[in-house]
């Protein structure tokens, strides 16, 4: 544990030097805060309709304006944070865990198991990820759980590949052989030795994948295959706003900014983590 704590401190110290990573970190904190306290922050009920105000531009009462149905866009963006972050987080968590397990099993045991797992991963890699998500949602219906499933399925191969190569690198190290020499069982070697040492690339990947997951969720929403109205979701709202783009551009701009900012946050942090954790860039 001390070692973990120690490395977290070192990572933090390195991260702090990377300005973009710090910016990313605070953006993410702000979004998480917004998501957690949405009911208290949002000035209006996100589905409350005031048809008289339909498509009104930004004002003091509605800083981001009003959408076609007369709903406060600011409130919808705030509530949308909750929806987008939750789906993305769940999808990334599932794919990270499943991917890590599959990849490390494949890498550690090798042979037929490796072949089978990685060929299955190849199949999912062969379908461009957004198309895969589209196909799943199209077949199973645009429910939240299906969205999570769709996004995570398209990310599992990525994680599996990273876990596999990380475990392969670890497996070739002498300390794994040394573990065998003192009679450690195979599973113990995997879970006590190989896996903990390959966590770092997984963490970097998770941060970067949060960014793509948010993009996928909102992309599906934009196509009408994501979270269904009236639930507030950035991509869905953006797609709705498209019809009135010429008369009310604000309805499309603000949800877009929300997507953009959250994705930037995770990309900045992921990049920063990568630089901070990459052993190649460490000085001896």
């Amino acid at each position, binding site marked *: 544990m*001390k*070692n973990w704590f120690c490395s977290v401190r070192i990572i933090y110290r390195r991260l702090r030097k990377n300005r973009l990573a710090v910016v990313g970190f605070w953006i993410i904190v702000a979004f998480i805060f917004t998501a957690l306290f949405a009911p208290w922050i949002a000035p209006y009920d996100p589905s409350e309709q005031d048809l008289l105000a339909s498509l009104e531009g930004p004002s003091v009462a509605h800083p981001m304006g009003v959408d076609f149905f007369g709903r406060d866009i600011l409130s919808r963006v705030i509530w949308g944070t909750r929806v987008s972050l939750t789906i993305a987080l769940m999808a990334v968590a599932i794919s990270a865990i499943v991917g890590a397990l599959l990849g490390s099993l494949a890498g550690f045991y090798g042979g037929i198991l490796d072949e089978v797992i990685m060929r299955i991963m190849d199949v999912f890699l062969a379908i461009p990820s957004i198309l895969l998500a589209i196909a799943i949602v199209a077949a199973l219906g645009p429910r939240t759980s299906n969205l999570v499933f769709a996004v995570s399925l398209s990310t599992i191969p990525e994680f599996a590949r990273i876990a596999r190569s990380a475990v392969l690198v670890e497996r070739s190290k002498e*300390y794994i*052989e*040394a573990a065998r020499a*003192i*009679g450690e069982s195979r599973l113990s070697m995997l879970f006590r030795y190989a896996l*903990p*040492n390959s966590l770092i690339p997984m963490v970097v990947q998770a941060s970067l994948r949060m960014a793509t997951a948010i993009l996928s969720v909102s992309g599906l929403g934009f196509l009408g295959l994501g979270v269904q109205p009236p639930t507030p979701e950035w991509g869905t709202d953006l797609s709705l706003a498209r019809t009135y783009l010429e008369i009310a551009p604000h309805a499309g701009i603000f949800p877009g900014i929300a997507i953009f900012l959250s994705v930037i946050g995770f990309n900045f942090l992921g990049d920063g983590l990568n630089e901070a954790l990459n052993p190649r860039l460490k000085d001896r």
Partner: protein
Amino acid sequence: MNPIVQVEDLKKVFRTQNFGRVSKITAVEGVSFTIQRGETLGLIGESGSGKTTVGRMIVKLLNPSSGHIKLDGHDVTHLNEKAFKPFRKRFQIVFQDPYSSLNPRMTVLQLLSRPLSVFGIEKDRKKQRMKVIEVLHDVGLHEEHLNRYPHEFSGGQRQRVAVARALMTKPEFIVLDEPTSALDVSVQAQILNLLRQLKAAHNLTYLFISHDLGVIHYMCDRVLVMYMGEIVESAPTEELFTSPAHPYTRFLMESIPDPDPELTNEIDYVNKVKALQSTYGCNFLSRCDRALPNCFDRHPELVKLSSNHLVRCHNPLKEASVWKRDG
């Protein structure tokens, strides 16, 4: 009494895949030897000679392609991991690189108490700790090192930890696979001395693998010389260094630059470049300056020069040694 290790006609073929093309490399061929209790057997050779492969096959980190391995009289060649486990306790290995042979995420206490748990020697945490401290003292480390991680140690100290781990199960035999070649000279001397002390204190038997003739000379009772997967010479240390019979052995000795500037040796730099494995004839042929016609025809067998001196050469050397360091 049984010899502690007995190896018969060991062979190891590696299959490598290079862009879909499978090729076979014979790393070890026809290797037989025995190790008696209490001795230190040296295994010397250059990179690619198969010495490390032999060491790993003895403790079953690699399985031989053919041949037999007997540990304390028991044939362990075909035992599975579970059946071999009791032997793991008695037959240990220390690796070359202390930077990579210790799990970077475990403390010394965790590293050293694992063998106790795995073999069910001691389950109680407190007693485990006591035993670990005891062994740490044996290798010249202290209680204060218990909660440190490998990266907090110098190379020499790490190798002490690695040796301590091998000692935890009170083994009878340890394979030392180039245990000092990653260390600086001044630290190497500390570790070599430590290994000699431990051997005496714990009645150990060593297989000492190295490419350094000086280290082998200092550590071993008997030496095997390997070249391209085969044993080319085998003799007691003194005899090997005073009268090497195989041209390769002599060639190795001549190649070592001596730190005494007065002991010079001149090497012909143009020749003796390529090492080719010939399908027939002697493997050393392309580098040998005393080849006879029959060296081209027949692969030499390992023959006895005397009761304990074997050589694989049609035309063994008879003149006295070139090893000047004893003077």
